[in-house]
């Protein structure tokens, strides 16, 4: 016969107000298998826990039921107490008679009866509880950071500085991300590159950071503590070890008019290039679709004509290169890295108001000419025009004719907070960077005029509100609450038609330049990556955190963490804070040799498994493996499913999908659930 103890908590008045706790304890005292039953005002308090421990010893209890609040709140507390008294913690269960009973009912008699039923069900369940012990899995003490923007850089440096190795993967030829493109940063107006580039150099020189630039994550296998990462190193066609970053190849390259990605299309670059002078690694990359030689190769391959002996096309970079670092034969290479934890820091991209959108549900701005007016630019392009390293050397000159604009119109919330365009969320940073743009503009063009169309000013960060106020109070600056309904080119000006909703007046402005604060969207290809990582995304493609308040940098997949704008629009301070938070989570994980996991994982009854592997298809985490059952002579009898306890998250999808009903979730077995149901 079981010897179960029942402990009914009053939770002060929270439960006792509606439930007669003493009656519940009394009713359970006579239940078969219950050895001891009592009630107490605060079971989670120190005396309450002592009461449990003492009763366990006195009555030699082999199971404990605590009827109180949600297990989310105190399951760990009570299991720890039970463990301290010498019983397996998984012999302790909670019944939630607060959220499930006292808080939602008014009739005291009925609530007491319901509580009694619920506790009785748990008592019956505990009779079938098995002693479980935590699962230990070994850990590879290295981390992978995906994305080399400020989030990835910060996370990589934090982890590496703490003594763990880091593998940093960046898909562009250089790390630095969007922050390297910015001119100044709000609210302190320090130069973005000046604060970022030292960190980039730190990454390059750090003995514990392995940088894979111009690379992408190809495949992710394994599980927390033991990920196997396949990284595709795209063909750079320049040997990173031989190159001495002299730049002679770029001088020699005849293709010079390719729009520069780093300058947001406003400047030009050669087809062998480094994105910007401070790039890390400072090794050029050859742009395959634009290189004359590679184009000629592709043409020749296409025409399938026999290779005639003729002068090689171009290859001037090869001739110019002293250390012979250029290798046109180079191809994509796959490298594998073993890591224990992953930080995703893939950042964002800006919404494009063009007619063509890459996702259904998102539409462009026909009313703004779908971005075809040359003097209508986005925020990032304005940053490049303002930047000392930009295409104009820091002088503000508009794209169409190179004149210095006298009147600039800034439009906020382009795409953001606009369900009609498909993005109803606030992009968070635009109010601040528009204010920054206004101040930068006024700094460069003293007698210039700026008009800002805004919906609300959202400037909640430290020092943010005074910053926006400063912009608003600058002479020649006008903030209009409202939106622009139409933009079109009129001679050499851009006509902005809109409405000032505060004065209810229509506005018609002849602007020299229009800057759109376009919405922040997740990086292209995020869906592919999240699928590889088994991490979910919201319907905009931003990655989901495990808990919006209490686990903001973790994901539902153990061992995968988030930093920066891949999770939601973030400014630099938030991104850096998040990156450090993620690295502290990584370090907490990697500081141990072995990982302890909750043992509530699925277990396959191999004798009954029919091997249909529906579970494998149902498992979101890739936890199902194939196990071969062999006879005494080593002959294969059948193949059955096996759950890798290191990967299993205990979600129970496989249990539901199993046609043979032969998978059980430890701690939630059929026996336990059946017993509970029968007690009610």
């Amino acid at each position, binding site marked *: 016969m079981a010897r179960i103890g029942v402990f009914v908590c009053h939770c002060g008045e929270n439960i006792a107000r509606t439930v007669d706790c003493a009656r519940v304890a009394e009713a359970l005292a006579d239940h078969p298998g219950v050895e001891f039953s009592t009630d107490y005002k605060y079971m989670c308090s120190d005396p309450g826990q002592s009461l449990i421990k003492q009763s366990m010893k006195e009555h030699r209890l082999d199971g404990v039921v605590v009827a109180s609040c949600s297990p989310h709140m105190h399951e760990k507390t009570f299991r720890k107490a039970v463990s301290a008294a010498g019983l397996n913690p998984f012999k302790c269960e909670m019944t939630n008679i607060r959220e499930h009973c006292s808080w939602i009912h008014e009739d005291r008699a009925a609530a007491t009866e319901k509580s009694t039923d619920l506790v009785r069900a748990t008592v019956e369940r505990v009779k079938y509880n098995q002693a479980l012990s935590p699962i230990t899995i070994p850990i590879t003490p290295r981390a992978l950071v995906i994305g080399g923007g400020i989030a990835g850089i910060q996370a990589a440096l934090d982890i590496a500085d703490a003594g763990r190795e880091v593998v940093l993967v960046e898909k562009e030829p250089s790390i630095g991300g969007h922050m390297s493109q910015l001119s100044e940063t709000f609210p302190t107006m320090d130069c973005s590159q000046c604060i970022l580039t030292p960190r980039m150099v730190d990454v390059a020189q750090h003995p514990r950071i392995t940088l894979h630039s111009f690379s992408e994550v190809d495949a992710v296998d394994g599980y927390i503590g033991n990920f196997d990462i396949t990284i595709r190193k795209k063909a750079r066609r320049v040997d990173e070890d031989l190159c001495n970053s002299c730049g002679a190849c770029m001088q020699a390259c005849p293709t010079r008019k390719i729009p520069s990605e780093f300058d947001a299309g406003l400047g030009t670059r050669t087809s062998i290039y480094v994105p910007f002078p401070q790039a890390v690694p400072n090794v050029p990359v050859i742009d395959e679709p634009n290189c004359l030689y590679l184009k000629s190769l592709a043409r020749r391959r296409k025409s399938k004509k026999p290779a005639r002996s003729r002068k090689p096309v171009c290859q001037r970079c090869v001739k110019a290169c002293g250390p012979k670092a250029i290798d046109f034969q180079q191809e994509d290479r796959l490298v594998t890295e073993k890591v224990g934890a992953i930080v995703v820091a893939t950042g964002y991209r800006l919404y494009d108001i063009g007619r063509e959108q890459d996702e259904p549900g998102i539409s462009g701005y026909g009313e703004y000419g779908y971005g075809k007016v040359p003097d209508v630019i986005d925020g990032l392009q304005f940053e490049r025009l303002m930047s000392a390293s930009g295409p104009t050397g820091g002088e503000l000159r508009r794209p169409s004719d190179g004149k210095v604009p006298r009147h600039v119109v800034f439009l906020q919330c382009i795409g953001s907070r606009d369900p009609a365009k498909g993005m109803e969320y606030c992009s968070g940073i635009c109010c601040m960077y528009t204010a920054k743009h206004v101040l930068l503009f006024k700094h460069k063009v003293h007698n210039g005029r700026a008009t800002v169309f805004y919906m609300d000013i959202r400037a909640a960060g430290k020092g943010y509100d005074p910053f926006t106020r400063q912009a608003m109070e600058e002479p020649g600056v006008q903030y209009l609450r409202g939106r622009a309904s139409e933009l079109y080119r009129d001679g050499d000006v851009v006509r902005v038609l809109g409405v000032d909703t505060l004065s209810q007046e229509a506005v018609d402005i002849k602007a020299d330049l229009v800057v759109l604060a376009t919405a922040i969207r997740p990086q292209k290809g995020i869906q592919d990556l999240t699928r590889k990582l088994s991490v979910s995304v919201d319907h905009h493609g931003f990655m989901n955190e495990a808990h919006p308040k209490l686990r903001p940098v973790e994901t539902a997949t153990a061992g995968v963490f988030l930093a920066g704008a891949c999770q939601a629009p973030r400014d630099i301070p938030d991104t850096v804070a998040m990156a450090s938070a993620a690295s502290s989570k990584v370090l907490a994980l990697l500081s141990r040799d072995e990982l302890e996991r909750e043992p509530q994982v699925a277990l396959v009854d191999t004798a009954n*498994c029919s091997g249909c*592997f529906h579970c494998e*298809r*149902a498992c979101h985490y890739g936890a199902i493996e194939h196990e071969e059952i062999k006879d005494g002579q080593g002959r294969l009898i059948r193949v059955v499913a096996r759950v890798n306890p290191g990967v299993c998250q205990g979600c129970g999808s496989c249990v539901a999908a199993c046609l*043979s*009903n032969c998978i059980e979730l430890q701690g939630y077995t059929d026996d336990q659930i059946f017993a509970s149901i029968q007690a009610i």
Partner: protein
Amino acid sequence: MKELQDLARRLLLEGRVDIVIGYQQGPRGVRPSFVTRPEQADALIFDERCVHNLVTYLSPRRAHLAAWPRRAVVVKGCDTRAVAVLLRESHIDREDIVLIGLRCGGVHRSAEASGPLTAESVAFRCADCSIREPELVDHLLGDPRPAPPGNSRLAERIGQLESMSHEQRREFWNNEFSRCIRCHACRQVCPMCYCERCIADKTRPRWIESSAHLRGNTAWNMIRAMHLAGRCVGCGECGRACPVGIPLGLLNRKLAMVVDEHFDYRATDDPEVPGPLGSFRSDDAEEFIV
């Protein structure tokens, strides 16, 4: 017929297979035939009485056939859909089996029938036959046959059931299930019922009451129908095997319609098409989530 017998003989003689499973004349109509020696091959026949879905003998549950692991089986177009499910659910290796496909012009509802096929006598599943020339097979034999005579009785009966109120429908099924004697013939004949241990045989916990009482009967038939949702190929063998004549085909066909409606899945002879239970699509209907 000779074509089939010759092929069976050749497969056995060449050692390609250990057994050929087909049809032969029995004392009462046509019955399954298990040919393990070349000289037995002459017994094989194929005509419109060959209603049985022999794919059930490919199921690993058939322990008595374990001595003949490499099997050839005679299949009609509709039967290949069951093969596809077994392949998809990793129960057979395509290399281990030889599928002898026969061009089919429909079969009788009973293996003991005689005379030509009529709208009255044709099996329900022939009504909307779409695979008269099976593609999944290794050998395709027989002359092209005319299309089976149409009948819409199954659709009509489902229509009748759908027009009933919930109470009427419950009464209808209670009436049917109350006759169930729990012989489990439906399970034994079904090519998809291959569990090592059936939920009906489990005692800890006992999910389904074992005595032939309406409560356990309903649970059994409902659970079996649910286990077949998205897998049933509509061969109707359960209904044919039922000694008390419960129209199990109705239940399964209705579920197949629901699966089609919600998950855009129909039984297919393509083993590469994932079953609805094992596939997740972002456009799956989720109206059950409130």
